[in-house]
């Protein structure tokens, strides 16, 4: 067993960190937490800028086959994620680069690959995911939005919701009922669509903290070319499951928390309460240390997942475990950091707020990771049913 990186990997990692650190210097002050990417104009601009910076180095196509412009290895993806997470740099479209691209590489026709991969690698087209509906959250089998084929087009009607950044994105990939008569799991098609298509209306949903990372998307006779599908018609379920496997790498979030831990330590080392530095309070020392333990445990399992993926092995259970663990660690971190800050823990971004209000923001935004990307309750089912082989109650 060997945790050592190769010399080449070390060199790459160094470069990823250097570039990200440099980009950090250009980050707008309003960028507090990744959700800001979608919420604030200057943050979205920054995202696009970073994307270009990454693209020109080939970093949006790490581990891809060289015929589609790929560079580097699967391991580079992991190391790059570490750097982006630690320095909290956007520019990496999780929908396009992380989820769609590997799905297309495995499941799409040549023409689709040729058409869509290159703009993703160039950081030119930003994507959103069109998954959930008001009555279909965790349970995608009850979707109702339809795409009815008419000639060489699909006519799309219905509503999607909780679409991260849909109001910013150029294109979307989604799943629609193409054969309302067919049986469950064999009536859905995975469709790529231009978000500027007439008949598509996007409305941001105000988030509890006043931001708006999520949207509702309405379809009213939106016409989409029939060629823009991935996989077979009515067999989109298989594509969704494939894509879901690329969805849950926690490395970015974990490394972002590492940075937050450093900020927390700094805050404790600099802030006095009752005439004593917070860092001298044994209770705080004890709890911050426990956060550090959990964070290191999260990173350890993220490496385990990377190791499996590097060998193209399945990481189903570990990925679910990691997702549960880092997302709930995020909750604990937010609760604990706002506690440490005392009365300042409730202050929103302003001159009174510690660390730009990041902790108060985290207190509310922690749900983005626990609820999204397969709610943790679903992840626990996955571990129990598919991992531990426990019987599924009918």
């Amino acid at each position, binding site marked *: 067993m060997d945790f050592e990186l190769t010399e080449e990997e070390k060199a790459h990692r160094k470069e990823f960190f250097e570039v990200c650190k440099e980009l950090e210097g250009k980050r707008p002050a309003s960028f507090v937490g990744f959700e800001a990417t979608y919420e604030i104009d200057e943050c979205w601009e920054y995202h696009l800028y970073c994307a270009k910076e990454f693209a020109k180095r080939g970093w949006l196509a790490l581990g891809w086959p060289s015929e589609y412009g790929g560079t580097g290895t699967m391991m580079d993806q992991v190391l790059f994620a570490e750097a982006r997470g630690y320095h909290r740099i956007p520019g990496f479209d999780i929908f396009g680069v992380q989820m769609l691209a590997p799905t297309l590489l495995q499941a799409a026709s040549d023409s689709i690959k040729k058409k869509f991969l290159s703009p993703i690698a160039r950081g030119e087209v930003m994507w959103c995911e069109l998954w959930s509906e008001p009555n279909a*959250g965790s349970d995608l089998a009850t979707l109702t939005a339809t795409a009815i084929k008419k000639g060489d087009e699909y006519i799309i009607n219905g509503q999607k919701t909780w679409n991260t950044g849909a109001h910013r994105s150029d294109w979307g990939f989604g799943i629609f009922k193409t054969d309302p008569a067919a049986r469950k799991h064999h009536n859905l098609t995975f469709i790529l669509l231009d978000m500027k298509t007439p008949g598509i209306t996007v409305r941001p949903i105000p988030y*509890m903290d006043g931001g708006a990372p999520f949207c509702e998307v309405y379809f009213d006779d939106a016409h989409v070319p029939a060629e823009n599908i991935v996989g077979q018609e009515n067999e989109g379920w298989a594509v969704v499951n494939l894509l879901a496997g690329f969805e849950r790498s926690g490395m970015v979030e974990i490394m972002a928390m590492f940075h937050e831990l450093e900020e927390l330590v700094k805050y404790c080392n600099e802030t006095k309460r009752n005439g004593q530095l917070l860092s001298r309070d044994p209770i705080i020392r004890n709890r911050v240390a426990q956060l550090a333990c959990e964070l290191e445990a999260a990173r350890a399992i993220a490496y385990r997942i990377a190791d499996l993926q590097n060998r193209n092995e399945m990481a189903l259970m570990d990925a679910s475990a990691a997702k549960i663990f880092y997302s709930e660690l995020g909750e604990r971190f937010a609760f604990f950091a706002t506690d440490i800050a005392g009365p300042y823990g409730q202050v929103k971004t302003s001159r009174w707020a510690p660390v730009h209000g990041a902790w108060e923001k985290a207190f509310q935004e922690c749900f983005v990771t626990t609820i999204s990307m397969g709610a943790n309750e679903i992840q626990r089912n996955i571990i129990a049913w598919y991992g531990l082989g426990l019987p599924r109650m009918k």
Partner: protein
Amino acid sequence: MDLRFTEAQEILRKMARDFLATECPKTLVRELEKSEEGYSLELWKKMAELGWMGLVIPEKYEGMGYTFQDLTVLLEETGRNILPGPLIPTVISTFPILKAGTEEQKEDLLPKIARGEVIITTALLEAEGTFNASGIAAKATPKGNDFIINGTKLFAEMAHVANYIICVTRTNDTTPPEEGITIFLVDSKTTGIRCEVIPSIAADKLCEVRFENVTVPKKNILGKIDKGWPIVEMMLRKGAIAKCAESIGAIQTCVEMTVAYSKERVQYDRPIGAFQALQHIMADMWTSMQTSRYLVYKAAWMESEGQPCAKEASLAKAYVNEVYKNVGKWAVRLHGAIATSYDHDIPLYYRRSKAADIAFGGTDFHRELVAQEIGLI
């Protein structure tokens, strides 16, 4: 022993519940969050008609003459519905006047408070953000018949609309921290006072209040010079219990809404409330609510009876702080994405769980008081 509400309390509860349901819908709550004032004058006047601000004020000062326990019964309802505005700051700031005010101060202020004409708040915390006496640095210096106050207070709830501010100052820094504290009743219009709202998670209009050479007449001292800290402790104790009562109401709403939603929301061909993992979480939410409830009722009863209950107040606050945040968190998670929306009611409660935790002392502050009370040397 009879742990049921009295008939009069049941009437108070029901009236409050009906009143708030009609007069303080969540649309208004959200509107007030975004407003500058943070409260509705119209609603405030109606509350005054119901006698809420004067609930614990004796009848001879135009109050209702109810008990502290009755107050907590009311606050459980305001917590249940969410009632933005200066009710708690005003009511809690009334206690130092009742306890330590001169007859003149009482006659002047109490009827106005009861009639809803005067809003009061307390300015206690400062830059260090501690609830200990050592954190009081704002200085009051005698000058003839006046004192001159200098310093900056933080997190004074609704100070920007208050008519009076109970300002906790240091008048002696050669003694142990608790023994040099003096409390002033300050007219908020006095020259030298500047107020700024701090943006906060509950949008509850916590203020920075700067005192720059603010002249306050000696007769505005509440209690005695240098002897103010026991009064602050009394306010913190009553405030902690009051906040707990409010939190119990909020926790109950979170539990009820979550249970109700889980019966309606269908996923995988059944209401999500049929899933055992979620059932057990909801059972735990209910259990933590119910264990909190009687802990708070006990403390409220003791305070109401005039029994020493510093321990019970701190036990309750330390416990309920964590229960509210945890129940709030699970309420969001069991609702799923829908409850992350600003327009949903659950996050209104969830965000307030953090503010409630902080108000009148956080968990660790009260745990330390408990540690002392149970005899850890």
